[in-house]
């Protein structure tokens, strides 16, 4: 039995089908209390920037799963912008890339960045998802 749940998780991805499936897994496995979803980097960055003004800790996610290929603002740009502001939150936020890209250039780039905890290749396996949520709980 898990002793503690992740309070708030955040998913940034433009693939509706993927989001529905992930939501379903998270709900059925009860991996976190709440979930917020953004369709691209820009939307989520706007959200995080607004949190800088309003320091309501409940609104700060413990864990972010972000895709790389997205319209308007892709994963890389979000990570770059997010890295600049992440230390201003009173909470440690764990960031994972979840992408279907198996391009070694992407993987190496992710490894070189401190902000990123790990690079997960889609399809993400349920147990994998479970273990990263447990780690962050």
């Amino acid at each position, binding site marked *: 039995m898990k002793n503690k749940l992740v309070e708030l998780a955040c998913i940034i991805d433009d693939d509706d089908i993927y989001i*529905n499936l992930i939501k379903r897994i998270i709900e*059925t496995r009860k991996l976190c209390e709440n979930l917020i979803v953004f369709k691209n980097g820009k939307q989520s960055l706007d959200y995080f920037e607004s949190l800088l003004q309003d320091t309501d800790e409940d609104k700060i996610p413990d864990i972010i799963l972000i895709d790389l290929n997205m319209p308007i603002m892709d994963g890389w740009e979000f990570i770059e912008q997010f890295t600049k502001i992440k230390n201003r939150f009173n909470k440690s936020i764990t960031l994972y890339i979840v992408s279907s890209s*198996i391009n070694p250039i992407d993987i190496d780039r992710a490894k070189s960045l401190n902000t990123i905890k790990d690079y997960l290749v*889609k399809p993400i396996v349920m147990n994998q998802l479970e273990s990263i949520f447990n780690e962050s709980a």
Partner: protein
Amino acid sequence: MLCLHYKRINIHLSNTMVQVSVPPNLIDSNIGYLELKNNDIHCSKAFLSHIGKPTKNKKISLDFFIKNLVHKDDSNQFRNNYYSYIKNNLPFRQSMLILCKEGKYKEFVCTTNQNNVNLNTSKTKFLFFNIRKFKTNKRVKKHKFYYKEVAEMTSTGSWYVDFIKRKSYWDQQTRRILEYPEDYKPSLRRASSYYPKKDYELAKKLFYKCATNGESFNTEIKMLTKNNREFWVRAKGKPVFNDHKEIIGIRGIFQDIDETKARELSLQRTSDIIASQNKRLYNFAYIVSHNLRSHTSNLSLVMELINTTKSKEEKLELISSIEDIASSLNDTIEHLNEVVTIQTSTNKNKSPVKFSESLQHIKMSIGQIIAKSKTAIVSDFSIVDTIDYIPAYLESILLNLITNAIKYKHPERDPVINIVSYIENDKTVLEITDNGIGIDLEKFGGKLFGMYNTFHYNKDAVGIGLFITKNQIEALNGQINVFSEVEKFTTFKITF
């Protein structure tokens, strides 16, 4: 072998003789050297044994060396080479006659570099002299005929610009290459007419540097003949010095390399095309792998969920989501198919197409969209109307760019699309300009033509149109460029 050694010393400071020690392992005992100080040359024993003793104290002046010991036919060349060597560290190799014992000239090869031994420092410079083992054939040496022959067969003309007399000289070969009559007198004042505008700037720069700093040049440049024909030339030039180390002119050659250059350029073009095709293929492989993966990974996620769910209802719901995945997989495959078709059908069905007719077809097929969005399309094909192209591609390109312009119209004004064709560098160009919302090229420029990249909050955006357009254009060796200012306009420029 003899060695002429030059030591650079501040002229005003010292008049005392400096003994120079030459590393014995580098130069064998038989080799002498000449030490040059305050324009005086100090000869070594070995050198003196060859040339005899012009003075008592092993000391001769550079002037004396050049004027009396070096044969007059070689002295100017030697002086220029020598000063270029000292001033600009320009190595040289020159065959020359030096007056030796009993008033006989012997032929030496003077080099700045012997068996890759480099004794030169910023202060000390060496010149090596080797006796020529095989004497230059007298007929070649004496007869200008051979030089003429060489000049003609290699299309090489020589020239001289005299700064003192303020005159330019061309030989007949230069006149022939540049298509000027035999009695034509060149002049620096008319130099701008010898080059196309852009190349004239380059030529001016090279001449200026040579005249002021004594820097030699060796470059490929375009020139203009009297008949205004552009052609490629290899131009070499080097400074000419007087006895006081002053630059008094520039001597050089022009070699007609138009044919070779044309071949080189065409090879370069072929190589560029191959490189771009290769890049597209690589890109395509990446796209295929990436785009198909996102669907298959969704599929396996569904299967995993189905397997772990016990509820029947939920299972049925999950199965229905397979339908969604299948349909998007289908879309992707269709897009990929479209791209493959472009790559494979480039060779066939090129025929003369009229811009005006293609545009007319499109106006008819999307008449409703145009009318509904109140779009005005203004076109001017008066300069070029017909090109040799695949008709379906031209329509597809126009359709994509026009619908794009309408899709991203400015909310505060009706769309106006300007389409114009013209000729640039012998190629047909088509420009399509809209007054829409524009795009931040600094941010998105690199991805604009990528697959599935969209940059606006627009629900119609699929991110395939410009990708297909670019592929169609490039498959037929064309180019597409974009210029834009946010909130103002976007121009797509297609070079066919």
